[in-house]
């Protein structure tokens, strides 16, 4: 019999970034008693790091914009692998989600006539990103945080308790989703501060935990991005979709080493910044792929004119989708035309007056000044690709955000798959959080409050197993049965560093078959060693222990990425195979699903030869004809297989 503390809620939201907070607001407004649980302090989630803006076809700056144009851009950016219904809902609902933020107190930058200003970004045909300088994510998270507080203030007036209907459990981690039969029954959690375990009983769980970047060495992601939600869903029996697609943002800082990977916003290019190699050449003109030839400027002069006269000129190729720019930078560096610290030059200093740079890109100015001693108003930045975002994620129903196969489980934001296809456009992430966060919260609340015939019950055996799993790092000193004596426990920090190095080197921006096979071997080795990851000290705020637990998730998710990447023998979006460099129209119809090999949910697969993940191929649903009709036939033939075109 377990003795952990238990609390009952209708909806539990795991993660307090944009998607999680928006889901919680929706669930609470729908009448569900809602708990949010997050690893960091309330208001610190990774969403704060989003810089450029929220993509929404409001048409405030160019009235030619509408949801159909946004939908087209999103599919082009994702190389048509997107779950098209998600892309449709996203494009249609994003403006309402942005305007709603204003009614909650958000203050976006304004146009001359007092509406929300919108800026250019890679892959977006019109200026589309609502923004606040280059700190849009902070505005988003603060607005949602303050909306949550305002709902709590309402509840306080009515019930005398701020947390009667909506509570944030901050600095707590979920290690297992609990189930009765197929259905979700709750979540097993620990408080980071005290190390105490507790269980939240709830029929609905919304997973909104973000991404996986901390499995890679060079990344723009924070420590929280350990693939927790991906792993929780897998362990609960839900499949992950298209995990091979990982976005390497083209512009991360490359020097000094301690800040390598920190993001340099795409707004730098959106506002006029250009990329040059060591010979001073704007090399992006050499890298415009065939599918985009008609849409981008062929000369520097035309590209420069576009900023002032976008109706009669084409955009500069620095604003190609991120996957294209990242590969181009990688090629230039490889060809020996890189900058001194292994990147290329990103220059705004010769393109805009100093005071304009400081006004439009204040945090970039600050970041380079403080961390690299570089004054971006006077000299070029050095930048290179950095692991930024995972397009793959939990396979969900487009309309309800329900995870496949596990009633009561929902997913929204980066942790959900499908929306962005093989590559995400800048600015589409913040809008994704709001659109699908809201949908997930609504449907999770409807499911929880509409249950007939009693709620799923939490099983004490599962609770005890989860507790034992979480405590294992404290007793890792002894040798495993049958193993030789005297082997010291593994250091979780060392294991983590080895994992990051392996994923970076072997399953990074350019992939080769033999390297990915080597990665899978390395992952198997790490998985066995991770069983022996030991920690010192006690349970109170112990970062070594927390990391040892997060390793399980990173190893699971890394295996998904490596296996799916090995399987997909083509190059598309955030998946580039040196041995299969072309995009293959036949692969467009293929989704790769990752499932747990051991469906009992245990992690018994410690045999080094046998991995934890099985891959399943599935054919995607045909794109609805009225959505296909938004494209010219000449464009569709580049993406779709013959039989799809004539169906």
């Amino acid at each position, binding site marked *: 019999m377990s003795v952990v503390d238990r609390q009952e809620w209708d909806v539990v939201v795991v993660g307090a970034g944009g998607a999680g907070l928006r889901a919680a607001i929706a669930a609470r407004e729908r009448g569900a008693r809602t708990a949010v649980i997050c690893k*960091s*302090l*309330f*208001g*610190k989630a*990774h969403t704060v*790091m989003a810089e450029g803006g929220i993509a929404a076809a*409001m048409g405030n700056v160019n009235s030619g914009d509408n949801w159909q144009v946004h939908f087209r851009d999103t599919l082009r950016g994702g190389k048509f692998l997107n779950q098209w219904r998600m892309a449709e809902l996203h494009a249609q609902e994003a*403006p*309402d989600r942005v*305007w*709603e933020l*204003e*009614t*909650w*107190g958000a*203050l976006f*930058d*304004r146009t001359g*006539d*007092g509406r929300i200003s919108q800026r250019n970004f890679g892959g977006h045909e019109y200026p589309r990103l609502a923004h*606040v*300088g280059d*700190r849009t*994510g*902070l*505005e988003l998270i603060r607005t949602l945080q*303050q909306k949550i*507080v*305002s709902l*709590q*203030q309402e509840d*306080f007036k009515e019930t005398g308790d*701020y947390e009667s209907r909506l509570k944030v459990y901050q600095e707590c981690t979920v290690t297992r989703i609990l189930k009765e039969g197929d259905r979700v029954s709750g979540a097993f959690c620990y408080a980071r501060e005290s190390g105490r375990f507790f269980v939240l009983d709830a029929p609905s769980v919304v997973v909104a935990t973000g991404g996986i970047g901390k499995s890679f060495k060079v990344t723009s992601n*924070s*420590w*929280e991005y350990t693939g927790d939600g991906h792993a929780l869903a897998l362990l609960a029996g839900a499949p992950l979709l298209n995990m091979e697609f990982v976005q390497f943002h083209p512009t991360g800082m490359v*020097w*000094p*080493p*301690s*800040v390598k990977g*920190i*993001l340099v916003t795409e707004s730098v290019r959106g506002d006029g910044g250009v990329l040059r190699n060591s010979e001073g050449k704007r090399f992006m003109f050499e890298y415009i792929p065939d599918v985009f030839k008609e849409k981008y400027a062929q000369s520097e002069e035309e590209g420069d004119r576009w900023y002032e006269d976008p109706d009669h000129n084409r955009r500069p190729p620095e604003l190609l989708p991120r996957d294209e720019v990242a590969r181009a930078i990688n090629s230039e560096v490889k060809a020996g035309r890189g900058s001194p610290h292994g990147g290329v030059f990103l220059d705004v200093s010769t393109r805009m007056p100093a005071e304009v740079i400081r006004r439009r890109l204040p*945090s970039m100015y*600050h*970041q380079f000044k*403080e*961390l690299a001693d570089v004054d971006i108003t006077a000299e070029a930045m050095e930048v290179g690709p950095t692991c930024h975002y995972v397009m793959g994620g939990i396979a969900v129903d487009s309309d309800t955000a329900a995870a496949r196969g596990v009633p009561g489980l929902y997913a929204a934001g980066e942790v959900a798959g499908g929306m962005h296809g093989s590559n995400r456009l800048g600015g589409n992430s913040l809008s994704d959080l709001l659109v699908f966060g809201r949908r997930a919260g609504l449907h999770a609340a409807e499911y929880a409050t509409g249950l007939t015939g009693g709620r799923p019950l939490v099983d004490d055996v599962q609770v005890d197993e989860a507790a034992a799993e979480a405590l294992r790092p404290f007793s890792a000193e002894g040798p495993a049965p049958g193993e030789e004596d005297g082997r010291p426990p593994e*250091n979780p*920090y060392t294991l983590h560093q080895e994992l990051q190095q392996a994923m970076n080197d072997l399953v990074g921006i350019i992939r080769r078959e033999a390297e990915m096979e080597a990665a899978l071997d390395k992952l198997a080795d790490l998985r066995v060693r991770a069983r022996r990851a030991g*920690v*010192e*000290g006690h349970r*109170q*705020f*112990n*970062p*070594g*222990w927390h990391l040892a637990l997060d390793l399980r998730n990173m190893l699971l998710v890394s295996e998904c990425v490596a296996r799916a990447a090995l399987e997909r023998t083509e190059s598309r979006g955030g998946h580039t195979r040196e041995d299969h460099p072309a995009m293959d129209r036949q692969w467009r119809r293929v989704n790769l699903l990752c499932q747990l090999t051991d469906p009992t949910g245990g992690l018994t697969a410690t045999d080094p030869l046998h991995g934890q993940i099985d891959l399943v191929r599935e054919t995607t649903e045909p794109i609805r004809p009225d959505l296909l009709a938004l494209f010219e036939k000449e464009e569709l033939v580049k993406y779709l297989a013959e039989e799809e075109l004539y169906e």
Partner: protein
Amino acid sequence: MSSYEARFKVWRGDVGGGGLEDFGVEVNDGEVVLDIIHRLQATQAPDLAVRWNCKAGKCGSCSAEINGRPRLLCMTRMSVFTREETITVTPLRAFPVVRDLVTDVGFNYTKAREVPAFVPPDGLGAGEYRMMQEDVDRSQEFRKCIECFLCQDTCHVVRDHEENKTAFAGPRFLMRVAELDMHPLDAADQSGLDRKRTAQDEHGLGYCNITKCCTEVCPEGIKITDNALIPLKERAVDRKYDPLVWLGSKIGRRSPGK
């Protein structure tokens, strides 16, 4: 690239007490204090507790005191110290210690709940808001706040005066009141809420005697005192007598009210 070994003193302990622990640790070019704390975790003290997230000065998690000064660990470069200097890292002094460099910052979340939220204007639907850039500039400056709580930590009203915490919201949340008060479309007035008055009566604005310590430690460079607190005091003055504003107007440094 040049490396050297730096000497560190890091406070370790918990609510029951603790003390400074000595470390010698490698430092490389371009590193910040948080890098060094991470190296200590990875090589010498795996259970050393520290809060951090973005490591890019955007989330405000890694607040601590370095050589007694409230700072973000991720934005303090090692190059600002000499190689001979011993660097002392301690937890935020104004808040109760949880463990090592981690403190209980719950005070701030309590205060955040006591500031009434933005009140949307009647008769304006979503999408109908019109505001000029110059009218939102000031509130936008305050919304740059990353809630690192360094201002709350350094403010002498509460730094060594636990007894003032009940009545005083601190610079961050007085600035929040100012932000909403200056929001061009906030309709608090129409709903019977006088933000200026609550700043005085409920959030302890009168305790602030504009020593500008908060502004000095703000990593975002927000002029908390000059742009938020003093104007708020001036706007509140016709509601309540405040000796500082009165004095300011007497010696000709500020005009009273607007």
